[in-house]
């Protein structure tokens, strides 16, 4: 039977101020660690949720994004006749030929410019393909009129994009007749209008992409190899999920690497803090350690008591950090995604994985900080330790 855990716990409790300071140092590090992971996760989840695995995006070959892509009307028509395209309840193919362009809008308040995605959509197919998109205010645009609907995060943050306001582009004024919510997907950061109206306004004779639902999800590979091999077509097909994942890759990787580097640097500081605290804990309790050893506890018991104390310290920090980080979920970041070149809003997202990783990380910091002092404590000579208590 070793030294009970309550011994380690009570010692931390006795030195509350030191414990709180050390734990908050570690807590801040865990906070940074968790927050950067949450940011990368939020970005990726937003873009992954944007896509649906049964949807296929058809783009011009080797264009990385819809904005760069161009699909001729004839080619789009060919895609429409493929057998893999699902048929909707109305007997029409579940397929939308869309136009995606960027326009420069100014943010409310700061007047800073940002590239916003404008998507020319086909009604009703575009909506059927994206069940996440729900109109929350106003109505859908009337075909033939210069009307658009704006995603929730665009309507709120950009000048002229709110309900009833007008946006000017393509030599026309466009009335915002509705606001839609697409949950935590990229569509919330878009403006939608009728595709034919848009093509006229922007003088674009070609579509950007063709999106359709697969009749059977397993037919994707077959479809892909056939249309990419078709000499009449210069297109490539991606599952919508894969398409949006690719869009987020560079930025998510940047955020992760940045987070990792920062965390490593920061944890040096926190580990130093833990080491100092634990050394002081050992120094203050020399007589106590001598007494415990005299009572018959082994070096091993002393070692583990101090290591446990340090682990507990780390855990306190971890819990503080995770609690702090969980509040970050309330914050939405809006920035330009380098890959699609367009504005995207996303939130810090805490997952169970990040939660465990953060706690584990805090324990590791505690362990590293506590090891050397614990060894010092366990190596102490009993007689000298007892004598030193003046």
């Amino acid at each position, binding site marked *: 039977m070793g030294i009970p855990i309550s011994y380690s716990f009570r010692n931390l409790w006795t030195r509350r101020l030191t414990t709180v300071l050390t734990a908050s140092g570690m807590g*801040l590090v865990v906070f940074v660690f968790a927050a950067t992971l949450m940011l990368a996760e939020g970005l990726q989840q937003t873009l992954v949720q944007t896509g649906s695995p049964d949807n296929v995006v058809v783009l011009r070959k*080797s264009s990385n994004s819809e904005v760069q892509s161009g699909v001729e009307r004839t080619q789009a028509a060919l895609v429409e006749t493929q057998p893999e395209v699902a048929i909707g309840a109305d007997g029409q193919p579940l397929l939308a030929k869309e136009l995606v362009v960027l326009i420069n809008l100014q943010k409310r308040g700061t007047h800073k410019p940002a590239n916003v995605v404008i998507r020319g959509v086909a009604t009703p197919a575009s909506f059927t393909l994206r069940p996440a998109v729900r109109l929350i205010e106003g109505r859908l645009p009337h075909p033939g009129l210069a009307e658009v609907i704006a995603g929730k995060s665009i309507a709120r943050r950009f000048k002229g994009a709110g309900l009833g306001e007008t946006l000017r582009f393509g030599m026309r004024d466009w009335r915002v007749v509705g606001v839609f919510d697409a949950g935590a997907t990229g569509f919330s950061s878009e403006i939608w209008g009728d595709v034919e109206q848009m093509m006229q306004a922007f003088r674009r004779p070609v579509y950007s992409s063709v999106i359709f639902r697969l009749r059977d999800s397993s037919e994707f590979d077959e479809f892909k190899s056939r249309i990419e091999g078709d000499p009449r077509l210069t297109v490539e097909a991606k599952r919508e999920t894969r398409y949006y994942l690719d869009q987020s890759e560079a930025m998510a990787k940047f955020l992760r690497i940045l987070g990792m580097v920062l965390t490593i640097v920061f944890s040096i*500081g926190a580990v130093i803090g833990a080491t100092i605290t634990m050394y002081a804990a050992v120094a203050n309790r020399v007589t106590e350690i001598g007494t415990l050893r005299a009572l018959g506890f082994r070096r091993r018991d002393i070692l583990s008591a101090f290591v446990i104390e340090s682990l507990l310290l780390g855990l306190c920090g971890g819990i503080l950090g995770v609690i702090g980080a969980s509040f970050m979920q309330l914050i939405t970041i809006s920035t330009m995604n380098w890959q699609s070149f367009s504005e995207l809003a996303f939130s810090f997202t805490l997952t169970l994985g990040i939660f465990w990783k953060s706690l584990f990380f805090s324990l590791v910091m505690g362990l590293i900080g506590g090891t050397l002092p614990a060894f010092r404590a366990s190596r102490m000579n009993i007689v000298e330790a007892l004598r030193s208590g003046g």
Partner: protein
Amino acid sequence: MFFLKFVIKNIFRHRLRSILTIVGVAVAVLAYGLLRTLVGLWYAGVDRASDTRLITRNSISLIFPLPVSYLERIRGVPGVKKVAYGSWFGGIYIDEKHFFANYAVEPKSYLELYPEFVLPEKEKSAFLMDRKACIVGNRLAKTYGWKIGDLVTLKGTIYPGQWEFVVRGIYHGADRTTEERVLLFHWDYLNEAVRQTAAGRADQVGFYIIGVTSPAVAPDVAVAVDALFKNSLAETLTETERAFNLGFVSMTEAIMVAIQIVSYMVIAIIMVVAANTMAMTARERLGEYATMKTLGFTAPHIGGIIFGESVAISLAGGILGVVLTFPAAHWIEVELAQYFPFFSVSRETILLEMLAALTVGVVSGIFPTWRGSTIRIAAGLKRIG
């Protein structure tokens, strides 16, 4: 004099603890300095922009082109000295991981407007003569081992197909902030190919670059150019190169703001660590402080000793951090040249680093100083037994 000596002797009392704290502060200061430099680099493009250059683009957004026919009309605007044009090509070399900027430009006027791209006369004329030629920046050439005469193939993302160019020149930046990772080739070459495959997209440019006679006329020229094309099919938006770059930079501002917040957080973390250490140190010495008070020393004396120790440790860490900043920045410049063509630490950053260290010292000293200087002697002496 004595107090200084006493403070220094106290620092060496818990050598390990002091060293750990100094290292901690040094790491924090180093991280702070490097992060600040990183953020500074982000905005460096804004600072190095010339104020005698204007950029004209489609007012809807960058992805919309302008007709090449605008050239003559822009040239006619008073105050315009020279006009170049080009398009963002967006070609990919090998795969997406090997990203670098590549533009199709009207080569003669472009190079005249960008004197900071320094090219030997012989290479320059070779580039201008050969329609399939390209020039590349020195760093880019080094990265891929390109030499004059080499063939470079880019995969088009906006303009489909495989595009082949012959390297005819390698330019050097006029100073170290000049971007040396760019590939430039003939816009005519691009346009002719486009005319054959997608005639509708031919004769269009992504941007015009206007050199003005003096910075003073730049705003008027910008207004005059945009007025020319008002209510046309392709309205223009003309702004100074600085404003244009700033617009770009501000789009990713959120990330930069986050990095800035984090750079202050690292200071906060070390502040907590240092405060804890000082609190611990002061607590252990309460008996000594009480003794000194018995001898007639007053609260300011005791406070000064504790505060002095806190500030001295942090400043030592700060100096170490500043000293380490230079080799670290150099290392980044050499090892991560691909991402950071230059990574020079500004004098302002160094000053801020020292200020951060000082702040850590001051803040972490406050509580222990207060505690040590207000200790009741009788209570303090009891702790000795």
